[in-house]
């Protein structure tokens, strides 16, 4: 039961980090700038876990995961905005999670139908395409509400044709403004722990093993009686749902939500991929640690910020060559013995 022990360590690290930050904040040792970074740091860790489920456990590269985050962010923000004056904060935020996660999962399923029929490079580029489609469509989307109900348009706010008392909720490229600021560090940590719980448990279950079997050898998995379509979809939907949860945290931590390229474009998705690669593909705990460090460090060392992306890109290239080049692996086996070579998927 070594694996179980391993999982507990991950939870322990997260809880310990939470306590340390809380103590630092309570004793006034955390700058307001740093306090502002805690929630984003945590939701980046959440989406890194989601992406690692897709890349490390399922073995398919998605470069559109921020699209699912975007879905989660917008659907939940929409829900919170509409019910702002109807529901009290706690049930509203819980329902916002339900809405955001459900929609992200639904889109994961719908997008998964075409995407999972593809493999490798094609799959990656189609996830990118869907991520961009989601972002572009949301940017062109207008939704308003008045006493007659909801109004939709793909042109502009005027086209909604609302009564004078109507309110524009989703305002095209201006997005959603005034979402209630419901997210905080504690809730974010709870979400992260839940995401870890789901993914780590999944990996140690028959479904998880089936998913990893498909990753390692789809032909053999099929011959062993594994339904490839079903398990690929399962992993992809769970991954999308968790990304959606990260989106809910994101949209409830800012006042003005827009589907900008900076946060939801493929460059943002690639950023998450950097976290996953640096933390170790297939290593869930590594993703959390890498996401936190890579997010916070450049924010703290402002001088580093200019060179941040450059350094990340070099890290990405070097990590891939060191970990995956057949020649380098041979060399490492010869020099250090076989035990230093990547231990594969541990969670």
């Amino acid at each position, binding site marked *: 039961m070594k694996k179980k022990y391993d999982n507990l360590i991950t939870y322990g690290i997260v809880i310990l980090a939470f306590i340390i930050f809380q103590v630092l904040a309570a004793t006034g040792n955390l700058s307001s700038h740093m306090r502002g970074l805690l929630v984003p740091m945590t939701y980046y860790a959440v989406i890194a876990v989601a992406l690692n489920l897709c890349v490390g456990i399922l073995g398919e590269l998605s470069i559109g995961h921020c699209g699912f985050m975007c879905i989660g962010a917008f659907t939940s923000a929409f829900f919170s905005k509409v019910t702002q004056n109807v529901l009290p904060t706690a049930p509203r935020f819980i329902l916002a999670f339900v809405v955001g996660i459900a929609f992200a999962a639904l889109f994961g399923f719908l997008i998964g139908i075409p995407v999972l029929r593809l493999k490798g490079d094609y799959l990656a580029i189609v996830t990118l395409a869907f991520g961009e489609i989601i972002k572009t469509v949301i940017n062109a989307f207008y939704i308003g509400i008045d006493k007659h109900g909801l109004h939709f348009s793909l042109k502009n706010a005027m086209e909604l044709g609302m009564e004078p008392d109507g309110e524009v909720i989703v305002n095209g490229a201006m997005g959603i403004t005034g979402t209630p600021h419901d997210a905080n560090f504690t809730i974010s940590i709870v979400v992260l722990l839940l995401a870890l719980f789901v993914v780590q448990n999944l990996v140690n279950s028959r479904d998880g093993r089936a998913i990893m079997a498909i990753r390692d050898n789809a032909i053999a998995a099929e011959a062993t009686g594994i339904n490839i379509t079903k398990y690929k979809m399962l992993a992809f939907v769970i991954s999308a749902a968790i990304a959606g949860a990260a989106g809910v945290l994101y949209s409830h931590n800012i006042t003005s939500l827009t589907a900008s390229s900076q946060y939801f474009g493929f460059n943002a998705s690639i950023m998450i991929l950097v976290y996953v690669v640096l933390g170790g593909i297939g290593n869930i705990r590594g993703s959390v640690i890498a996401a936190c460090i890579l997010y916070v460090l450049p924010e703290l060392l402002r001088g580093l910020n200019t*060179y941040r992306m450059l350094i990340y890109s070099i890290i990405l290239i070097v990590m891939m060559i060191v970990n995956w080049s057949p020649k380098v692996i041979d060399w490492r086996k010869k020099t250090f013995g076989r035990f230093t070579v990547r231990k594969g998927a541990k969670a």
Partner: protein
Amino acid sequence: MSFLTYLISGLSLGSIYAIIALGYTMVYGIAKMLNFAHGDFIMVGCYIIFSVTASLGGNPLLGILVAVVLCTILGITTEFVAYRPLRGAASPLAVLITAIGVSYFLENVALLIFGADIKSFSSVISWEGLSFAGGQLRIQGVTIVTILISVLVLVVLQLFIKKTKQGQAMLAVAEDKGAATLMGIDVNKTIMLTFAIGSALAAIAGALLCSAYPSLSPYTGAMPGIKAFVAAVLGGIGSIPGAMIGGLVLGIVEILSKTYISSQLSDAIVFGILVIVLLVKPTGILGKKIQEKV
């Protein structure tokens, strides 16, 4: 008449996509990898031309020449340093992620050298163009040159592959690396040559792209690069005439949907095409089927 104008402008954009897609499709067909950084080679090419002409006051043609040479060197170096070590890696994702890293690297190097502000690129083509029907239909010089160059590139590439030894070697490597090695073909050299050609084409595409759309930033190449990949897939990856057809179709669709549907949604439409093609006919218009051996 306005429809014709848009159609021609679509053809022009499509020709640029076609030249980029040719590079993509050759590299994908022969080295079996998606060079995600291909679009950024375009950007590098543009900055080189920009530096030579705007800063050093050189001749645009000299700029293009320098860009072609340097991009070729860049392509070969990238292949050697970043991609070759990962040939035969256990996971096919390894080289793709590395290519993404290279793309990031080039963009950020450009960002550090030239800054994030958009540079206005002066067209390398000074010809005014032609005017028809008493000035109602004007075709810009850059449009005509772009279309002509893309046709020229297509013809030269086809001849190169059909008629030369190196071209035949490329076909052999594309078919089966192992068998090609047994036939005495140097696979590494062949793939390197492919990258060299693809990168040189990227530089030419860059010159044309920035002449038609004269704003240059470190991210100039990324989106056209991805769209050119869509074009390559649409035409059938690995197929040279396919890349040409795919590029033209995509350019026309993009311009027409921008004009008649929505300028905001045109990217979504272009990517939608990729999804539909891969669903309905994953091998594209001219591609052939590949099945994994059991």
